């Protein structure tokens, strides 16, 4: 099982000091956090994509490429990549590029994005959210899986004889997760392709997560990718830990109470009861997290949100230390002991290459590629 952290990249005032970090500071900090994640033995770092303040992460592959250059083992992912408003051609190119530079340590998570104005800023309509996610991903798959693509759809200009470069590393596209909180259509999409399904598992009651994952597993089996319990499931989660649980609660409370997403609403105690949020001792986090398996089954990836709502870098790094030293080693052991042998691990570049075989998939242009002459003209 993979464990990691994911960041939404918010630039938020620290309510206990009144200080708001600059973008420059937060961008440096997120690199520090990713490197720390590897150092403490976590497996995955995932970064969100946003196109409006207070978020800085408009260009995740740039950040992940930089992190890739400074890490050795860490799997790099997104949470999420906007499949609705990005051109699927650019997603195909950016992530294949990142895949090569990172030596295959790359996967990505598709999401629709729920910020209304982002759609028109990119020439799209939020009411087309689901059709955009369906069509754009269908094209993205073909751009990675086929060397030369002819395409005509509803949402982008047609393609004739198009090759997305670079071709995926070893001819194997990065593994894809699909993230959705409440749309069965997206769980259906993940199941259809045999891709992973990720539930954010932070903002809503666990009951929603359970129903979405159950549906995804059932449809994964329906489409012939394996048994329902072999489907690839990832969960988010939100934790704050101190040795004594009361210290964790009192330190986290001002951040919770003022958090942009849920602040000024329910109490920390109410929200902890209603959602998977766990604020307490490492042991409490271990027990709660092991309990996720009771309602989603054996799953492959657990990502924690630890860097948000104005928490200072020092605190975030301390949280990573606790995760790496006290929580994740126990979770690894306990989850592994419970998992039956026929349940697969999350796919990695190595496992996909082992399953499909590696090939150099470079498409060598027949014509003079220095002048940019198209193959048709040269023929």
């Amino acid at each position, binding site marked *: 099982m993979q464990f990691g952290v994911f960041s939404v990249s918010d630039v938020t005032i620290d309510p206990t000091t009144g200080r708001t970090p600059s973008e420059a500071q937060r961008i440096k900090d997120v690199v520090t956090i990713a490197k720390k994640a590897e150092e403490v033995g976590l497996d995955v770092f995932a970064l969100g994509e946003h196109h409006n303040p207070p978020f800085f992460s408009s260009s995740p592959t740039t950040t992940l490429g930089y992190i890739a250059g400074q890490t050795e083992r860490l799997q790099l992912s997104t949470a999420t990549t906007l499949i609705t408003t990005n051109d699927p051609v650019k997603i195909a190119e950016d992530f294949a590029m990142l895949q090569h530079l990172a030596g295959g340590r790359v996967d990505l998570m598709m999401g629709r994005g729920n910020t209304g104005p982002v759609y028109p800023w990119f020439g799209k309509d939020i009411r087309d959210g689901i059709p955009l996610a369906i069509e754009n991903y269908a094209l993205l798959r073909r751009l990675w899986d086929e060397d030369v693509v002819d395409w005509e759809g509803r949402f982008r200009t047609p393609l004739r004889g198009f090759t997305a470069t670079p071709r995926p590393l070893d001819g194997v596209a990065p593994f894809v997760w699909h993230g959705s909180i409440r749309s069965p259509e997206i769980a259906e999409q993940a199941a259809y392709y045999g891709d992973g399904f990720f539930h954010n598992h932070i*903002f809503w009651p666990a009951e929603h997560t359970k129903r979405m994952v159950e549906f995804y597993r059932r449809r994964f089996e329906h489409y012939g990718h394996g048994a329902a319990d072999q489907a690839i499931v990832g969960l988010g989660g939100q934790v704050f830990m101190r040795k004594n649980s009361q210290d964790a609660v009192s330190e986290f409370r001002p951040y919770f109470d003022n958090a942009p997403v849920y602040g000024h*609403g*329910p109490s920390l105690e109410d929200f902890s009861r209603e959602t998977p949020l766990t604020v307490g001792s490492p042991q409490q986090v271990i027990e709660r997290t092991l309990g996720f398996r009771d309602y989603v089954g054996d799953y492959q990836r657990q990502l924690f949100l630890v860097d948000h709502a104005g928490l200072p870098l020092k605190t975030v790094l301390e949280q990573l230390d606790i995760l790496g030293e006290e929580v994740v080693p126990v979770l690894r052991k306990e989850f592994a002991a419970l998992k039956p042998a026929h349940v697969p691990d999350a796919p990695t570049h190595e496992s996909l290459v082992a399953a499909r075989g590696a090939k150099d998939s470079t498409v060598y242009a027949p014509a003079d590629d220095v002048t940019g002459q198209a193959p048709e003209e040269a023929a």
Partner: protein
Amino acid sequence: MEKRRIAVVSAGLSVPSSTRLLADRLTTATVAALRRRGVEAEVEVVELREYARDLADNLVTGFANADLRPALDAVTGADGIIAVTPIFSASYSGLFKTFFDVVDKDALTGKPVLMGATAGTARHSLALEHAMRPLFAYLRTVVTPTAVFAASEDWGGAGEASHGLASRIERAAEELAELVAARPATRAADPFADAPSFEALLGGVGTAAVG
């Protein structure tokens, strides 16, 4: 005997409230009118005052907590709705609006609704028509032609005022019962069972590109 479920939403703030009093009168008359049509009504009353904080939390978090969910389910799963609010500042109360704001906007489509409102004087009565009826039209419900307004004076004394209220309640209840009895019982919506298959979602995406 056939069965139908009636959900009563009452947004009165005082206990007891004249809003609840009107809701109860409308409910009793509706149950009797349904029985005359051979339909047994099961009634569930949602007093919004009890959910004031839960509703505010739902606005902030985007989900209904465990206390609020049964109240929402009662209304979205009902075969008919009796909705009664006090009139504040020329319209339904904020609490009443908040409740219908957090109900899924498609969950009430086609449901029969009987509207009621209360206020200190009859001069507020048209708020039912200019504010409340458009709300239920937006939710694509089927609203009875008669909406019932009760001013303080309607509750007292003899003569025209109280007699008029009783006959309006009776007429509105008959209209609601007629609509509820005529429709099949509501089936609980299941977003997973109702989800389209991927082939349907995909439509013929990208297949026109050959050549």
